């Protein structure tokens, strides 16, 4: 192959593509990718389990017993009314227990060893419900129903309640969109958490297999970094396609039964497109940083040691962006949108809340520049710190000996 001197090097893109292609295939056909695909199942399973347990605990912990502190005849009438209505209303009715001591309702609530949500006193025609605001608001209806049934076997007809819904206000719509912004940020965060570990240990393989020197001699280290980053990005898009198809299937099957999010300010198509771009940018930014940090590690064990502070750092960045949602237009939001690592999160939230497009163009350009700078810095550091000597530890000693 007689190559002219002016074509004697691969372009950065071509060199990165060689590395990316190798990595992409190697990861895609590895066990690690299978676990990567299973990755999102774990938070979903844990979330579902935690939700189930929490709900159960909440149900069990919720107090639905009211103390009866009326006249004894009224107490008995109330109990009979409950017994009568229970087959129809069941859980909708409070459990009624006559108070054992004839003391003021406030004092009954303070009795240790008892666990009343509220106390019913007064008469059947004018019952008084004493207790904290929440429980008395919740139970006042059922108590009125019980009192009415206790006072007369056949109570008068209840008046119909007229419902009058109002259109949501602008403030309410923006407030609703915060939910979409939060959901978008959370999804972005989860995806990046899944990738972080894989990126962190990415260069360890090359170092362990001693392939790194072959790569470093043939192509610039920038190309190695870009190749590895884009390979992982490609792998993550495959993962997202799989998860997305699964999610689409669930949505198609679940239909209206599933909870829905408010439409983002930029509309769903643009929001999703920006979400993909911000995911790519966020991943490339974090990935280039992780690749550099991981590249400094010599073994998988060192990588594991590094992963905890890095996860904490990811959380901090996420919290910053998440908190900035509540302060639109503030200095904090500007800081979150400008700081490279939190910028994709903050800007995705912005896409959910505001209509203007130009900040996104600016942010994407800024993030791309930061990716370039991070990779350049990481590659330079890697070359300086890692490619030190042929046989570590011998150079100094033997060189002195030889001299």
């Amino acid at each position: 192959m007689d190559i002219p001197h002016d074509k004697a090097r691969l372009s950065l893109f071509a060199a990165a593509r060689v590395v990316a292609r190798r990595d992409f295939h190697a990861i895609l056909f590895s066990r690690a990718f299978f676990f990567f695909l299973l990755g999102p199942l774990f938070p979903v399973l844990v979330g579902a389990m935690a939700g189930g347990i929490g709900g159960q605990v909440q149900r069990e912990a919720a107090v639905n017993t009211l103390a009866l502190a009326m006249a004894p005849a009224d107490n008995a009438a109330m109990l009979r009314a409950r017994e009568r209505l229970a087959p129809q209303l069941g859980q909708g009715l409070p459990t009624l227990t006559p108070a054992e001591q004839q003391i003021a309702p406030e004092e009954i609530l303070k009795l240790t060893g008892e666990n009343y949500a509220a106390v019913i006193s007064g008469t059947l025609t004018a019952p008084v419900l004493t207790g904290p605001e929440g429980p008395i608001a919740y139970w006042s209806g059922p108590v009125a129903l019980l009192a009415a049934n206790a006072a007369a076997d056949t109570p008068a007809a209840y008046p119909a309640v007229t419902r009058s819904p109002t259109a949501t206000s602008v403030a309410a719509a923006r407030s609703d969109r915060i939910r979409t912004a939060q959901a978008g940020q959370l999804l972005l965060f989860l995806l990046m958490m899944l990738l972080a570990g894989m990126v962190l240990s990415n260069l360890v393989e090359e170092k362990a297999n001693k392939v790194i020197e072959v790569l470093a001699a043939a192509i610039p280290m920038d190309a190695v970094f870009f190749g590895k980053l884009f390979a992982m990005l490609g792998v993550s898009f495959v993962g997202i396609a799989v998860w997305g198809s699964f999610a689409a299937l669930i949505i198609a099957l679940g239909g209206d039964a599933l909870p829905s999010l408010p439409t983002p300010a930029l509309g769903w198509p643009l929001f999703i497109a920006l979400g993909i771009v911000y995911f790519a940018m966020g991943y490339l930014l974090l990935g280039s940083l992780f690749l550099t940090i991981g590249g400094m590690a010599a073994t998988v064990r060192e990588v594991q040691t590094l992963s905890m502070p890095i996860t904490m750092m990811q959380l901090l960045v996420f919290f910053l962006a998440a908190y900035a949602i509540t302060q639109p237009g503030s200095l904090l939001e500007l800081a979150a949108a400008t700081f490279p690592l939190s910028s994709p999160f903050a800007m995705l939230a912005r896409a959910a809340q505001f209509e203007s497009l130009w900040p996104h163009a600016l942010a994407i350009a800024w993030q791309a520049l930061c990716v370039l700078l991070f990779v350049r810095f990481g590659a330079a550091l890697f070359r300086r710190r890692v490619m030190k000597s042929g046989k570590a530890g011998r150079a100094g000693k033997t060189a002195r000996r030889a001299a």
Partner: protein
Amino acid sequence: MAGTPLGMLTQPSAAPRPLTHTRPLAIEARGLVKRFDNTLAVDGVDIAVPEGAIYGILGPNGAGKTTTLRMLLGIIDPDAGVRRVFGNDRPHEVARLIGYLPEERGLYPAMKCDEAIAFMGALRGLPLEEGRKRGRELLENHGLGYAIDRQIRQLSKGMAQTVQLLGTLVHHPRLVVFDEPFSGLDAINQGKLEVMIRDLARGGTTVIFSTHVIHHAERLCDDVAIIAGGRVPYAGSVDLARDRIPAQVRLETARGEGVWRSALPEDARHDHKASASHFWHFPIPDTGIEALLKRLIEGEAGILSLSIERAGLHDAFVEIAGEAAARALAEDAQEQA
């Protein structure tokens, strides 16, 4: 094949000096310096390798050979000095013209042999399909046809090393750099590698290799650089290096004494075993061999044999790099063996 030698270079150059060579240089380095933390790994290395030469870099492990090669290839940057590969001071700009076999061999274990070779070619700009095709041919030609579809992890160390060597050459580089290419190879494969290096040079490829086994360099190289303690006390032809030590006369006589003795230098070494001839070792006298012979014959020394022994590269190495470096080199060679 000898380019104009740089000669004795013991001090780092303050600034690059123009070099004059009859052939264009594949590699030119001036005053390369590299420091790692508190260790001065390379301290002013000058090297000039003409195109088509077989060039050896000799020195014990840790002398600075690998660091020098890495600087020449652009894997690391020197702290000071200049390096040019095919006239380009950014080696990655001409990376497609270069093949490199590092000292610490490494391939992806899950790759098949032909894929590994193709991948190494692709890194140097060879299309993947072409690389795979050439890889299969190379494997067949080197007796590894049966292993084409095997993963690297399934190969022996020597086989994996051969695969990497083939990957280094698959794109037909104009410059091949081998870092300790003979280490880890058995004698048969060392011989095959020597043949391969000669074939490459015959085809016009420049070959540079580092080694701490001097006889490989002595057999193969036109020029060598001796590195010790991060410096290059000698860079030039193998012949000139050997000529630094005067040739020795080995004389065998029937008699031990006589007037002819005055023809020998006073410090001539004398070995004599009972009922055997006398052996004398001394440098060629200033008056020359003919005058010496005449006096020996006239003095009736009873010459049984006389030969002139040229110094080997090892002797030159000891002379140039010093006893300490030679000892380190010998230890490394022993470790390797």
